[in-house]
C-alpha cells in the first residue's frame, strides 16, 4: 500500500510504520472527523472496527484505534489518536452511525468519553456493574469482584394512544441464547424495537490479556460456538502475521475445507430454521437432517462436531487422508442432491414464499451506513466477502466464482443468499480436496513477537466478517486482542429492519439474521 498517497492528501497524518498488510498512522484528535470523511468519502476506505488500548504504563495515555480496510489493495489502515491527560475523544457517531456502538463500548469498558455521542448508556455491562469501574483498563485485575451496583437502565419509550410495550426475554421458550427485546407496538405493528444484550458477557477481552498462548486460542474458539473454526482461524492468522510465519500450502487448503464445512453446517441449519419458523415443517426437518450429515463429517474428520481444537498458531492439528478425500466428495454430492430437491419444494410453496418475501426489508442505504456485513449485507446487493476481497488461507488459489448476492434485502433474500452459498461451499470443498497439496501440518512460529506493533486479521465466518485486532507491548508480548464478531455490527440493524412489520413476523426476521449473542457480548 502506498502510504505516500495518503500523507500527501492528508498532511495532518503522521505515518508510523507498515506492518505486514497494515499501515499505521497517527492522527491529531481534532482532525479526526475530517480525516475520516476523506478516508470514507474520497478514498472509499471501508470502516472495519474500532477499539481502544490502555498504554498508560508506557507513555501515559490511551489510544483510540480506527481500523479501515482498502479493498482494492487488500490492505488495512490502523489509525489512532492519542489521549494524554484527557479521557475525552471526539465522537463520530452522528456522521457515521457505524461507530455508534463501538464508542459506547469504549465508554463503558475504558471510561473514555466520546464527546458528542447522544447515547452514553452503559453497553453490554448491566446496571448491576458499578459505573466507575472500567474492566479493560490495565489497572483492573481480571479476577476483581466489584460490589453489586443498583444502576438504572432507561429503555427508549414511545408515547401515544394504544402504544404498548412487549418485553421479551432474556429467558425464551426455546433453547436459544439470552437477550432482551423491548417492543413498542401499536396493534400488531412494531413502532420501535430495542434489543438489550450483554447477558452472556464473560470478559473475553480481559481474559485474552492474561491467558497463556494455548488458552488464548481455545478462548477464541469459544467466542461464538457455532463459528469456532473461523474465530480461531482469525486469531491464529493474526499471530502468524505477527510472527511472520506462513503455514504450508496444505494447511491453507485444509483451513479452507474446514471453514467451508462450518459454513455449510450453519447455513443448512439456518435455511431449515427459517422454514421451520415460518411453519414449513417439511423443509425445516429435512434441512436439520442435512446439517447433521455435515456435523457427522466434521466429527469423523476431527473428532469434534464444531471443529474445535484444530487451529494452532502456524498450522492445524488434523489432516485429511486420501481415503477421506473420496468419501467427503461422495457425502457432499449426496447432500447436494437432497438439498436441491428440498429447495425445489420450498421454492414451489406459495405459502412459504409469501411469508419470506417482503418481510423485514433492510434497505441498502441503511446497510451501508450501519456498516452491515455478511449475509445481511449480501442480501441487499452489497458485494462484501473477505474471501474474495482480502483472500486468506488458500482462497486466492481456489475459484470462488463470485460473491453471492441478492438485492431485495428481505428475509427471502437472506434465505436465498444462504442457499447460493451452500452450493458455492460444496463446490469449493470439492475443488480444494481435488488439488490438496502435500506439506507439513505445522510450521512452528517464533516465540518472540515484534514490539509495539499492531496487526489486523480478517476471516469470512459464515455470518460475515470476523475481525481480530491484536497489539503487542514494548516487550513483544500480546497486549490486547480485540475480536469483533459480525453480530456486533448486525445487531444494530435489527431494530431498523423490524420497524413496520407485525410482531408475529419478528421471530422470522430475527432468524434470518441469526446473530450470535455470545459473539456480541464477549
Amino acid at each position, binding site marked *: 500500500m502506498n502510504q505516500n498517497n495518503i500523507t500527501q492528501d492528508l498532511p495532518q497524518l503522521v505515518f508510523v510504520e507498515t506492518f505486514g498488510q497494515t499501515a499505521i498512522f497517527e492522527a491529531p484528535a481534532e482532525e479526526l472527523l475530517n480525516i475520516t470523511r476523506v478516508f470514507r468519502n474520497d478514498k472509499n476506505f471501508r470502516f472495519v472496527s474500532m477499539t481502544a488500548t490502555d498504554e498508560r504504563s508506557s507513555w501515559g495515555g490511551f489510544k483510540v484505534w480506527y481500523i479501515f480496510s482498502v479493498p482494492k489493495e487488500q490492505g488495512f489502515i490502523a489509525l489512532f489518536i492519542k489521549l494524554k491527560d484527557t479521557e475525552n475523544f471526539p465522537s463520530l457517531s452522528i456522521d457515521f452511525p457505524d461507530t455508534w456502538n463501538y464508542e459506547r463500548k469504549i465508554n463503558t469498558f475504558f471510561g473514555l468519553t466520546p464527546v458528542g455521542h447522544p447515547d452514553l448508556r452503559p453497553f453490554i455491562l448491566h446496571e448491576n456493574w458499578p459505573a466507575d469501574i472500567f474492566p479493560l483498563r490495565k489497572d483492573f485485575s481480571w479476577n476483581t469482584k466489584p460490589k453489586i451496583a443498583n444502576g438504572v437502565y432507561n429503555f427508549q419509550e414511545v408515547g401515544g394512544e394504544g402504544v*404498548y*410495550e*412487549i*418485553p*421479551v426475554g432474556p429467558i*425464551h*421458550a*426455546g433453547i436459544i441464547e439470552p437477550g432482551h427485546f423491548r417492543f413498542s*407496538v401499536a396493534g*400488531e405493528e412494531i413502532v420501535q424495537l430495542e434489543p438489550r444484550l450483554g447477558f452472556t458477557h464473560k470478559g473475553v477481552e480481559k481474559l485474552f490479556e492474561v491467558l497463556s498462548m494455548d488458552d488464548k486460542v481455545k478462548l477464541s474458539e469459544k467466542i461464538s460456538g457455532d463459528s469456532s473454526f473461523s474465530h480461531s482461524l482469525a486469531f491464529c492468522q493474526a499471530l502468524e502475521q505477527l510472527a511472520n510465519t506462513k503455514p504450508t500450502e496444505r494447511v491453507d487448503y485444509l483451513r479452507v475445507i474446514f471453514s467451508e464445512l462450518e459454513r455449510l453446517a450453519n447455513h443448512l441449519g439456518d435455511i431449515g430454521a427459517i*422454514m421451520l*419458523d*415460518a*411453519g*414449513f*415443517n*417439511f423443509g*425445516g*426437518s*429435512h434441512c436439520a*437432517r442435512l446439517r447433521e450429515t455435515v456435523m457427522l463429517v466434521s466429527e469423523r474428520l476431527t473428532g469434534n462436531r464444531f471443529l474445535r481444537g484444530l487451529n494452532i498458531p502456524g498450522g492445524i492439528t488434523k489432516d485429511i487422508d486420501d481415503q477421506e478425500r473420496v468419501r467427503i466428495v461422495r457425502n457432499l454430492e449426496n447432500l447436494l442432491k437432497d438439498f436441491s430437491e428440498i429447495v425445489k419444494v420450498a421454492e414451489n*410453496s406459495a*405459502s*412459504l414464499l*409469501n*411469508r419470506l418475501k417482503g*418481510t423485514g426489508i433492510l434497505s441498502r442505504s441503511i446497510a451501508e451506513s450501519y456498516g452491515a456485513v455478511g449475509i445481511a449485507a449480501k442480501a441487499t446487493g452489497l458485494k462484501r466477502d473477505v474471501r474474495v476481497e482480502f483472500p486468506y488461507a488458500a482462497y486466492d488459489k481456489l475459484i470462488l466464482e463470485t460473491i453471492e448476492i441478492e438485492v431485495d434485502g428481505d428475509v427471502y433474500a437472506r434465505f436465498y443468499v444462504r442457499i447460493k452459498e451452500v452450493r458455492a461451499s460444496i463446490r469449493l470443498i470439492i475443488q480444494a480436496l481435488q488439488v490438496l497439496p502435500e506439506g507439513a501440518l505445522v510450521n512452528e512460529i517464533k516465540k518472540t513477537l515484534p514490539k509495539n506493533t499492531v496487526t489486523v486479521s480478517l476471516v469470512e465466518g459464515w455470518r460475515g466478517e470476523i475481525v481480530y485486532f491484536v497489539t503487542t507491548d514494548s516487550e513483544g508480548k500480546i497486549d490486547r486482542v480485540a475480536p469483533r464478531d459480525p453480530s456486533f455490527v448486525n445487531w444494530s440493524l435489527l431494530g431498523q429492519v423490524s420497524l413496520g412489520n*407485525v*410482531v*408475529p*413476523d*419478528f*421471530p422470522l426476521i430475527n432468524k434470518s439474521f441469526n446473530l450470535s449473542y455470545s459473539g456480541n457480548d464477549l
Partner: protein
Amino acid sequence: MIIFIGIIQAFFVPAVSPLFIGLIKKIKARFQNRQGASVFQSYRDIWKLLHKDEVISSDASWIFRLAPFIVFIVTVIVGASIPLFTTVFKQLLTSDLLIVIYTLAGGTFFLALAGLDTGSAFGGFASSREMTISALAEGSFVLSLFTVALIIGSTNLFVIADSKNILFNNFFLPTILAFFSFFIVMLAESGRFPFDNPATHLELTMIHEAMILEYSGKRLALMEWAAANKFFILAALGANLFFPWGIAQNLNLLPVAIGVIVVLVKIIIMCLVVAFIESVTAKFRFFRLPDLLITSIVLSAVAISLIQKI
C-alpha cells in the same frame, strides 16, 4: 340402555379427544421422516400435568383461577350435546346449533379473559389475536351450519345428523361448499395451521399457546384437555352434519358400535387432512388470516343462496 349410552355420550369426547391430538402429531412426525412420540403421549402429558404443582401469579384474580374449569366444562357439556355416534338424543336442550356455537364462544371468552388477567404482554396480545379471529370466524361458523339447517329445516343438530340423504337430494353443492367453509372455521377455532402453530416455541407468534402461557400444573392440564376436546367437537360436527353416514338411529348395540367406529374413522380422516396441511404449508402472515375467514363467509353465503334456487 339409554342411560348407559347416555353416559358413554357424555364422556366420549373427553375420553378420546387427546388421542387425536397425539395422532396428528404422529402423522406430522411421519411426514417429516421422524419417528414421533406415541399417539398416547397426550394422555401421558395430561396425566403428568395433573400431578404437578402449580405456580399462580400473585396478581391473578378469580378469573384466572376459575377459567380452566369453565373452559373445560364448556367443552364437556358441548361434547355431550352434539351427535357423535347416535341420533337418539333429540330432546336434549343443549343440542341446538346456536346454543352449541355460543356456548363454545363463551368458553373462548373466558380463555381470552384469563390471558389478559395476569397482565403479561404475551397473554394480552394473544387474547387480542384470538378475539380478532373468533369474531371473524363466528359469522361463517353460524352460516355454514345454517346451510345444513336450512336444508333439513331444523336447527337441532341431532335432527340434522339424522337425515342421511343430505348429500344426494340435489343439495350436494351447497353442502360441500358449506363444509369447506366450516373446515376453515374449524382450523381457526381449534388453533391449527394456517392460523396458529400449536407446536411453536416462538412466544411472539403464538395465539392459543400464549393465552395459556401463565398456566401450569392441573389448570394447564385442563386447558390442554379442553383444547383437545374443542378440536374433537369441531371435527365431529363436520363429520356428522355434512357427511351423516353410519350414525346410529336407535339404541341397538350393533348400530351404536358401528356408529362409534364410523365417527372415529371420519375424524381420523379429518386428522390426516389437518396433519397434511400442517406439513406442506407455512403458517399464514397474521394479516392474511382475515382474508381466509372472509373466503369462508363467502363460501357459506354462496351455499345458502344455492339452496334458495332449488
